[in-house]
């Protein structure tokens, strides 16, 4: 199908973009277009105005600043996949990107677009949740930052005001000896996951896990951290018994029930995949 008619705006600066957004309620921001374009083509959305962010050069880029990695909202998924900064500091993101769509969609799709579309099974929001990333947003009223934990307002809806645009996502890499895992189950490669699981483990000088983060995608309305499982792992030696017990917490969550999979099956996958992500992490320790 073809989109309903709309007015097209291609601002060259962030100030112009948020100015347009403030003037035109109901306008949609077009980033990589790998979700919005299908929604326009299928007429799931019929905005009067589309504001294209692709001509704003300052919104794309990966920068290391003060031990953090700041990624512009318009940075393409394919550029993240190939970035030495991502490979060095955020290796679990690189692993997760392999599961995001296909070459052709990663060539256009952006990190900001993924976060704002906020599909419950999408990989990049799960990675942002794993790292407690910080989302930067701007409007004509000013700039603010939002903790990733607060970013999902509800199903597929970010906690942005109608006149706000995402500008960047900032990650704090884990230092010291860390390990990571990312696994997912989908019916076909490149599909959204039925369930995905990601983990980050930090080890202290005594060889015990001193920090753990676990995230499930595809089970809830938004990516879900597993604080009970993280607590179970913290201070442990990370034996297979520790992992089995931690993974068991993943089965006690409330899961979505939809045409792709029932809630019971999702809970089962959540436990199995959490276990596999942890096993992958210790089988392949990062620096």
């Amino acid at each position, binding site marked *: *199908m*073809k*989109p*309903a*008619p*709309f*007015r*097209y705006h*291609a601002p060259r600066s962030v100030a112009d973009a948020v100015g347009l957004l403030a003037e035109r309620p109901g306008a949609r921001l*077009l980033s990589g*277009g*790998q979700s919005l*374009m*299908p929604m*326009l*083509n*299928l007429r799931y959305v019929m905005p*009067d105005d*589309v504001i*294209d962010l*692709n001509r704003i050069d300052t919104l794309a880029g990966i920068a290391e600043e003060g031990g953090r990695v700041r990624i512009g909202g318009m940075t393409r998924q*394919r550029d993240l996949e190939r970035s030495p900064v991502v490979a060095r500091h955020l290796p679990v993101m690189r692993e997760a990107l392999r599961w995001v*769509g*296909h*070459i*052709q*969609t990663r*060539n*256009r799709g952006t990190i900001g677009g993924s976060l704002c579309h906020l599909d419950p099974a999408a990989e990049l929001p799960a990675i942002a949740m794993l790292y407690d990333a910080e989302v930067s947003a701007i409007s004509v009223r000013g700039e603010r930052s939002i903790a990733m934990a607060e970013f999902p307002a509800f199903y597929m809806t970010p906690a942005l005001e109608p006149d706000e645009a995402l500008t960047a996502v900032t990650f704090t890499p884990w230092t010291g000896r860390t390990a990571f895992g990312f696994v997912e189950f989908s019916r*076909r*490669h*490149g599909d959204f996951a039925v369930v995905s699981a990601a983990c980050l483990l930090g080890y202290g000088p005594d060889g015990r896990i001193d920090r753990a983060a676990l995230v499930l995608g595809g089970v809830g309305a938004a990516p879900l951290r597993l604080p009970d499982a993280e607590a179970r792992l913290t201070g442990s030696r990370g034996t297979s018994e520790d992992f089995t017990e931690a993974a068991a917490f993943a089965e006690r969550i409330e899961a979505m029930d939809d045409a792709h999979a029932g809630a019971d099956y999702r809970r089962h996958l959540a436990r199995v995949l959490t276990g596999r992500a942890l096993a992958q992490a210790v089988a392949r320790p990062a620096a």
Partner: protein
Amino acid sequence: MDDTIAVALRVNGRTFQGRCEPRTHLADFLRHELGLTGTHVGCEHGVCGACTVLVDGRAVRGCLMLAAQADGAEVRTVEGLAAADGTLHPLQAAFVEAHALQCGFCTPGILMTLVEVLNDTPDADEAEMREALSGNLCRCTGYQNIVKAALTAAKAVSGVRGA
């Protein structure tokens, strides 16, 4: 709302100018405004890959990009693969050789995807090639011969480079 906008771009090395509605996607623009019907339109929601073209060297879904967004871009389509004298691109030659197409509807998108894959990772093994092709659907062949042709072309291309 129905105001048209001007789009100027280079396609297969030639400069084109046209006008279209803002809602026109790139694949429709190539077909209807420029008459380049080698790019096919399948699902129009980014799943089938039939409309894949190269924009500034990168394989993208032609249905998930507005023509307006390609203003100033360098586009390559299946019409730009063979040499001016008609000599087939190594990928096209390998597809003929391996019988890698039946109805041919998906073929232009697959070829344009593989142009990028062969540029980036000419040493891709079969598993990597299958992953690279996962964004292109073919309902005739079962993919066996497509993968075979892709690997043959990759070998031909890296052979040329090594020489």
